């Protein structure tokens, strides 16, 4: 029995040793990990920890070339063995594309992954500038990292949706790095995009609403083919999510006038939650200064004010009905039908807000009328509920009064009996 166990142990040892000897030698990690200079040691340390390429069997030499079997630096860094050191600029794109543009190879590791990143990159502002000799621009490693690369789906990846804006801002919020770069219109490239974006409804949905489908930089600009959306393409970009708005806007008179489409009213990076106050030529209305309240013949101003007034009236009607229904409900009266109806009225208000993007009041008015009609019907039901409540309260008051009367009457009667008894005793 004991001899059998010993044999099994020896066989296991031999198998482990054979497996270890089958692993390809990697002197890169052994040597770099012991270096004092962090610039040389840290890539090896990062690659040894969590790295998607190492986990799939790739080694340093697959990107850097050289001979990982050699222990001496000269042989390990032998150019004849393909050693190219640290790739820079276009070399980075070529190094990554060697595998990532190879559909056959990628199918073995990530069959669903696209293989056109390098082609897209060549069409991007980054790619075009790199091709023209500007090595200051972003390449693959600027966003994905070079060592310790994680899957895009990994929440710690710099290109995970919640991290994209900060990753882009590493360069784009750096005024020194962005100095000299210009927008297509010739103005200096701004560096406040991240600060603006962090005030936006999109950022809020992404980071606080746990909505990973909410847009971040690459959803509008593209990722590998990153460019600012051109004039005329903005409505298409926004319309990829906000399809109905884009459809309505395409039918509006503003389509021909607004060079920047949606951005003209909603801004680009600092998109705020829209409000009725935005519509109009007074107060916070954004239709000014193109339209003015002073110009009584301005049809656009009149249309904006009409639609805003209608929105506000329907919203006020819904709020009033809501308060009424809540009061009646809290008193124990069944109002679920009215609550359901109010949801329908709120749906009408949302539909009217959507329709408004055609900037045609005659299309908005019927929807508002429908919503107002629903709210009015709910009000009638609410008032009936209030009447019922008052009736019940009156009933309670009468019952209580009757009970008190009986109690007082009984007390007086008892007293009278006592008095009679005392008199008869005397």
């Amino acid at each position, binding site marked *: 029995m004991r001899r059998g166990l010993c044999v099994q142990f020896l066989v296991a040892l031999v198998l482990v040793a054979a497996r270890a000897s089958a692993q390809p030698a990697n002197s890169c990690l052994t040597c770099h990990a012991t270096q004092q200079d962090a610039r040389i040691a840290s890539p090896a340390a990062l690659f040894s920890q969590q790295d998607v390429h190492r986990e799939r069997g790739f080694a340093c030499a697959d990107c850097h070339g050289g001979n990982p079997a050699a222990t001496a630096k000269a042989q390990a860094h032998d150019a004849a063995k393909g050693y190219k050191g640290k790739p820079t600029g276009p070399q980075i794109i070529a190094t990554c594309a060697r595998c990532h543009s190879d559909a056959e190879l990628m199918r073995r590791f990530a069959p669903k992954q696209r293989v056109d990143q390098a082609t897209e990159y060549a069409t991007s502002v980054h790619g075009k500038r790199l091709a023209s000799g500007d090595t200051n621009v972003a390449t693959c490693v600027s966003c994905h990292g070079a060592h310790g690369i994680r899957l895009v789906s990994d929440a710690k990846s710099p290109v995970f949706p919640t991290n994209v804006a900060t990753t882009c801002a590493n360069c784009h919020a750096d005024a020194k790095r962005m100095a000299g770069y210009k927008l297509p219109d010739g103005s200096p490239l701004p560096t406040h995009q991240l600060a603006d974006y962090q005030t936006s409804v999109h950022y809020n*949905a992404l980071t606080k*609403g746990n*909505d990973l*489908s*909410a847009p971040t930089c690459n959803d509008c600009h593209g990722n590998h083919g990153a460019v600012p959306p051109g004039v005329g393409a903005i409505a298409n970009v926004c319309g990829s*999510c*906000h*399809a*109905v*708005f884009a*459809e309505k806007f395409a039918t509006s008179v503003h389509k021909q006038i607004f060079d920047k489409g949606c951005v003209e009213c909603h801004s680009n990076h600092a998109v705020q939650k829209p409000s009725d106050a935005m519509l109009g030529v007074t107060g916070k209305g954004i239709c000014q200064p193109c339209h003015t309240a002073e110009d009584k013949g301005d049809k656009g101003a009149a249309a904006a004010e009409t639609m805003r007034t209608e929105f506000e009236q329907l919203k006020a009607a819904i709020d009033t009905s809501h308060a009424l229904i809540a009061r009646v*409900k*809290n*008193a*124990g009266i069944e*109002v*679920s*039908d009215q*609550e*359901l109806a109010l*949801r*329908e009225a*709120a*749906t009408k208000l*949302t*539909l009217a807000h*959507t329709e408004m993007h055609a900037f045609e009041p005659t299309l908005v008015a019927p929807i508002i009328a429908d919503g107002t009609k629903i709210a009015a019907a709910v009000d009638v039901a609410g008032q009936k509920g209030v009447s019922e409540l008052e009736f019940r*309260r009156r009933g*309670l008051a009468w019952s*209580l009064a009757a*009970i008190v009367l009986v109690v007082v009457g009984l007390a007086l009667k008892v007293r009278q009996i006592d008095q009679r008894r005392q008199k008869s005793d005397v």
Partner: protein
Amino acid sequence: MTADFDRRAFLDGLLAVGFVSTAAAMAYPVARYLVPPVSGEPETASAVAAKASELKPNSGKVFKFGNRPGIVVRTPEGELVAFSAVCTHLDCTVQFKADTSQLWCACHNGTYDLGGNVVSGPPPRGLEKFAVNVRGEGADAEIVVSRA
């Protein structure tokens, strides 16, 4: 004499306490009725969505599920599925579109498949799915929808 007086005072006190307690026991529910506490939303567990015979294949019906709308659909294959009809984007009521066999929100063009998953548009997540059971048989059979 003193003992008699003490006993009487004690009984009067006891009577007074009993009277006050009885009055309070009557007044409290009256006061609570007149000024009710804010009540929480009771969650509807199930509802009859429709008669089974109402729904032909590839059709849907919005029904009342408590104070919220639900939607029950008979798929083109004849299976019954039900969801909350409240769009996860901005709470509009979704409807069934027979031409695409999808659930559609008219407010912002959000679409969901018949598994409740987002197909396109701005909804951030799928619709809440309900369990569907058919109660009874024949023309009177009812589609009962419950929280899964």
